[in-house]
């Protein structure tokens, strides 16, 4: 082997341990490693200055600490980059000058990767492109870290829920080919002391899974007599996988949602490991599993109220640990769903609802699974009588459902979900309807897009079934998915409505207060922030017959349907999460918040970094609105 090959392999091994290279294909990393050269910069000396010429090389810190200084960021805590971190990725990819100045803090050795090669490799690497497009995401991570430090939890020895799965993988994956005899697989599982075996194709792409539990179940049913059959005949086909860059929180949520104990971890579709529930258990004292378990096991009202309080504490704890808004709001929603289901079961056990198919509908932010900490009830009920009923019989039936729903609403109120002041609750006869009635009402809004109809659409079209017969809600959504795209007049009005509020940016792109409320200089992060994305995403989704309710999922689905570039969808998703994160911070009592207004932030009370992040996020809102206005000439 030539000297150059050997050295480039050693470099490749170093790069492969760090993002974004860690998630790239071997070939891509190799091509980059072949161009690598090494430089040294003594302490205090600049490595790269802001402005100037387009940056020709990507630097990877091999050893030492580099300070990143933003122009105009005087008085701001400079950011420190450590071994394995890269800079300035976007500048090299976009062939432009660096936006920041980089200075060596100590003896700094940097690997330099040729820019032209990087751009060539990036063109074929979705992972690298995604990493570069996630500049906002990294800002988000930093703002999460800042929050963590602020709440004094940094010293916590518990590993954060935002730890990437990559860091949790303790061992190389154990996998086998589909034709491997079951007996051999079991012997390997026993020898390697693993709870599950991943079956992969020649490309290391996961095909299926065989867990200890599967084996026990199958043996119990006498279906495991012949150990010479190939594992392919016994495995559970299709695996639930997450990328190595996903967080521990995502893996927990995934397990809870699917009721599984193992999540397969992949990199560019290829197996890199398996994370088990036990791996994740170790992360938390007050864990999602435990709180979820306590909710499910609550035998009486007092226990449910206590479990609900636990879930709020867990949310605060996770937020303090720097968990991002995306994971956090999803976790909060998951726990809230469980509380609702438990409440439904509890009330149902005392006084059963009418013995007909029904579904409990979560609406608004709850329907989108985007709840922050301060949240009141937004719900409805759909039921289906076996045959068309007379007016009087239907009214009597509704009355019984309403009475029952009233008990549920009251129990949820005692669990810490205040009653909806606007009366959007299942106990309101207006929102306790048969499937036909819901369709009529929705159809009415679609045909006559009056202001009130649009307002209602923005709450009710974000529906999701939480309890009862989910299929009922699915039918309603399926109906909406075919009906909405055929109503351009409605969609155009909805788009116009979505564009009525503009991001609070001044003429020159600076932050501008709303001029209203208790503090006119404050920005309403919901009304002038997250809402802009939520409203735009709703129009995009409805127009394409997309029925998922989450804003991020809607943006991605719209991008997948060719609505706008995927990169823009990701950037918009990140910006939305940043604003959610800011809202959570304010709700936790940030100094830049405004007393009594949980969504307000005073931009002048933020530090330079936060202001910059907030501004970037709002600029992204402007871009999404531009896309929407072009689409709908609105």
């Amino acid at each position, binding site marked *: 082997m*030539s*000297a*150059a090959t*050997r*050295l*480039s392999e*050693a*470099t490749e091994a*170093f790069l492969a341990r760090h993002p974004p290279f860690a998630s790239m294909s071997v070939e891509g990393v190799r091509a980059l490693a*072949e*161009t*690598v*050269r*090494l*430089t*040294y*910069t*003594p302490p205090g000396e600049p490595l790269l200055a802001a402005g100037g010429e387009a940056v020709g090389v990507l630097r990877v810190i*091999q*050893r*030492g600490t580099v300070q990143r200084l933003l122009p105009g960021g005087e008085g701001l805590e400079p950011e420190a980059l450590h071994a394995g971190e890269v800079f300035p990725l976007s500048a090299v990819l976009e062939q432009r000058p660096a936006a920041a100045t980089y200075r060596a803090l100590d*003896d700094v*050795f940097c690997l*330099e990767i040729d820019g032209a090669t990087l751009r060539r490799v990036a063109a074929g690497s979705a992972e690298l492109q995604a990493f570069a497009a996630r500049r906002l995401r990294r800002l988000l991570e930093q703002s999460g870290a800042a929050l963590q430090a602020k709440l004094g939890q940094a010293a916590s020895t518990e590993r954060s829920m935002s730890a990437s799965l990559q860091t949790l993988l303790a061992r190389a994956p154990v996998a086998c080919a589909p034709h491997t005899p079951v007996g051999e697989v079991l012997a390997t599982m026993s020898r390697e002391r693993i709870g599950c075996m991943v079956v992969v194709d020649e490309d290391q792409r996961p095909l299926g899974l065989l867990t200890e539990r599967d084996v026990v179940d199958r043996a119990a049913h006498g279906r495991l007599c012949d150990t010479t059959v190939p594992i392919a005949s016994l495995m559970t086909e299709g695996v639930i996988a997450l990328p190595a860059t996903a967080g521990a929180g995502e893996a927990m949520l995934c397990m809870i949602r699917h009721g599984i104990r193992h999540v397969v971890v992949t990199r560019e579709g290829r197996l890199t490991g398996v994370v088990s529930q036990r791996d994740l258990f170790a992360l938390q004292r007050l864990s999602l599993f435990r709180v979820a378990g306590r909710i499910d096991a609550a035998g009486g009202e007092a226990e449910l109220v206590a479990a609900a309080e636990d879930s709020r504490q867990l949310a605060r704890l996770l937020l303090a640990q720097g968990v991002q808004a995306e994971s956090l709001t999803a976790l909060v929603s998951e726990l809230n769903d469980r509380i609702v289901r438990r409440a439904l079961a509890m009330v149902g056990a005392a006084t059963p609802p009418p013995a007909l198919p029904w579904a409990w509908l979560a609406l608004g932010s709850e329907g989108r699974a985007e709840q922050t900490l301060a949240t009141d009830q937004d719900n409805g009920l759909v039921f289906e009588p076996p045959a068309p009923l007379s007016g009087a019989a239907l009214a009597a039936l509704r009355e019984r459902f309403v009475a029952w729903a009233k008990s549920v609403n009251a129990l949820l109120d005692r669990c810490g979900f205040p009653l909806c002041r606007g009366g959007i609750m299942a106990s309101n006869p207006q929102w306790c309807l048969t499937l036909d009635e819901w369709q009529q009402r929705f159809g009415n809004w679609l045909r006559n897009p009056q202001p009130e109809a649009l307002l209602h659409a923005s709450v009710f079209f974000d529906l999701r079934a939480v309890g009862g017969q989910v299929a009922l809600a699915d039918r309603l959504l399926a109906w909406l998915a075919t009906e909405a795209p055929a109503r351009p007049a409605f969609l155009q009005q909805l788009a116009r409505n979505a564009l009525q509020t503009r991001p609070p940016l001044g003429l020159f792109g600076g932050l501008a207060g709303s001029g209203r409320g208790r503090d006119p200089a404050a920005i309403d992060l919901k009304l002038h922030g997250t809402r802009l994305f939520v409203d735009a995403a709703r129009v995009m989704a409805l127009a394409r017959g997309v029925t998922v309710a989450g804003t991020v999922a809607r943006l991605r689905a719209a991008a997948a349907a060719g609505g706008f570039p995927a990169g823009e969808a990701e950037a918009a998703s990140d910006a939305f999460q940043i604003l959610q994160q800011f809202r959570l911070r304010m709700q936790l009592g940030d100094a830049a918040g405004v007393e009594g207004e949980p969504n307000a932030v005073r931009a002048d009370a933020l530090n330079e970094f936060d202001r910059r992040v907030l501004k970037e996020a709002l600029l992204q809102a402007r871009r999404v609105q531009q896309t929407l206005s072009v689409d709908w000439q609105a």
Partner: protein
Amino acid sequence: MSVIAGWLARLRQRVRAPARDPEGFDLVVIDTETSGLDIARDRLLSIGAVGVRDGVLDFADSYHALLRQEAPTHGADILIHRIGTGQQAHGEPPAQVLQTFAAWCAGRWAVGYHAEFDRRMLERACREAGQPAPAVAGWMDLAVLAPALLPERRVRGRRPASLDDWLDSYGIDEVDRHDALGDAVATAQLLLPVLQAARARGLISAAALAAEGAAAGRLRELSR
């Protein structure tokens, strides 16, 4: 055609890195592995080297070869140079190795840690193989240059006294130092801060740096 292309490439390189530019230094860091420390009797087993140009270590510009031994060494020295008997027999013919190596480093400055040892081992091996000695521009010793140019450097509270000390003081530890190439890369990493310090002192050519090294070497001889 290729002659003209090569000439143009060299010319371009010269224009980009003028001789007066301190980073215009064109250096090769060399490490040799031998059957022992006796310059007159021990044999050259392998050569590892890497180029440092413009103050930048270029991994692609590197060289490594094992020299085939007529009578492989197999004593306790294997524990030192870690080149087993089988590997020694599998090396390339010495004349061929030394010829390619000489062509690779011709005209460039050679740097080593205790460079005198590497130089004499190489020159003797060339003589024995009937090859001319590598026509390098000259030799520099990092064991002399590093303390002379980095007098403030400390490791665990004292002045670095060996290559390992110097590497420790810069945290150069992830290099795979199991053979001549690994050692050459580690040594070349130490050369980078030395070149920085040379530039800070206004030593703007390889010749000036070599002169500084020679002076420091003589001073050290005298003070012994």
